[in-house]
């Protein structure tokens, strides 16, 4: 199995990111995405990660950015949270590995 930190992902256009009144949300817009009767809310960390998932940065790059931005965070925990979050986004159709 490849090192997860080397993976790169791009956002799928069938889920749209919106910020409304300070709330970060993902809106599924097309049939192939997850639960179309729902929208997904992102907490501030999730919203930061979403912005970093630009198809260029690897998960390793994103982990490094998060460690810079969130002082005192444990590297192992950041990596585990990041990977789990990305897996969730892939499952709902919001991300595609490239």
């Amino acid at each position, binding site marked *: 199995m490849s090192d997860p930190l080397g993976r790169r992902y791009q956002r799928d256009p069938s889920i749209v990111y919106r910020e*409304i009144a300070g709330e970060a949300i993902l809106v599924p817009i097309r049939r192939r995405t997850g639960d179309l009767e729902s929208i997904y809310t992102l907490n501030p960390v999730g919203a930061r990660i979403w912005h970093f998932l630009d198809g260029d940065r690897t998960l390793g790059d994103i982990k490094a950015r998060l460690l810079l931005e969130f002082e005192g965070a444990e590297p192992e925990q950041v990596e585990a949270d990041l990977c789990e979050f990305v897996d969730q986004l892939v499952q709902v159709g919001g991300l595609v590995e490239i």
Partner: protein
Amino acid sequence: MDCPSIPDLNYSDFGKQLGEAVGNRRIPLSAMIELTERCNLRCQHCYISTSAMDADAKSKELSTEQWYRILDELAEEGTLWLRISGGEPLLRPDFRDIYVYAKSKGFLVSLFTNATLITPALADFLHEWPPENVAITLYGATAETYERITGIPGSFQRCRRGIDLLRERGIPFKLRTVVMTLNLDEYWSIRAYAEEIGADFAHDPVVRPAVTDGVGRNPVDLRITPEQVVELEKALPMAEEEWQRLARDYWSKPGDTLYNCGAGLRSLHIAADGMLYLCAMSRERGYSLIDGSLREGWREFLYEVRYQPFTKEFACRDCEMSVLCARCPAFAALENGDPESVVEYVCQIAHLRAETFLP
């Protein structure tokens, strides 16, 4: 660092969460856009109905690109719920382009339609790009009644076919009806049909005055009596509890401003010709989005309209029963030509509701 997560919320739960996040800020979370005033039906009661062939109305409609620009601006201003209405919006040949553009901006799009123009191809398209909801008005339980209202032979079957096409594909929709003299007898049959197919259903007992020339008949002539409105409500499950709850929660005199609803605070309306209004009924003062920006129209023009003060004394200012009453300044302006006036018909309904449902 908080653990990143993506809780999924249904639209209703998210609406509550967003309402709390918005607090006292003015954000047009909900926008209704009228793609056209024209309609393929000629409903006798309709408040906005111009013939499908009306060249003048068509010539005033915004272009596809103008709608794209307005949708961009709505997204910038924070709109989430976008209601596409008419007239009959499916008459626009560029309906799908505008709809997909709206979806791609991340709006939660709902569609207000009479369903008669829904084809298998359009239903497949809506299945691929699901709306939050499709609101369909069903005027009768039989072709005879439905078409007496719509004026178009064959429209009942086409409407029922449209509903079936959505059902077969699991596209969310709800049924609505306007109760009037022409269909009062079929109210319970319409409701039974909605229940039979598992559709959410609601009725509006109050026919509004027209905002366009309509079909030549004054819609208000089709109103059922205030007694009939309340008789109907009495027969509905939970009506008494619901009116009592509303009265308990919202019994109060209006504030110092003419408008006291969410229009201009959380919502706005854009007509087919690009005029920005507080709501579909409020057409006295509008702002042209062809000449100006949505940002300015919302932040400056509608702010001023929304917060205009009362200018005179009249009975509704001292009335605490507004929660039972369908009156609003826009309704009064259409009914009497004066936004600061009593609408006698709905005032009678409110008093009857109080006598009937409140302890």
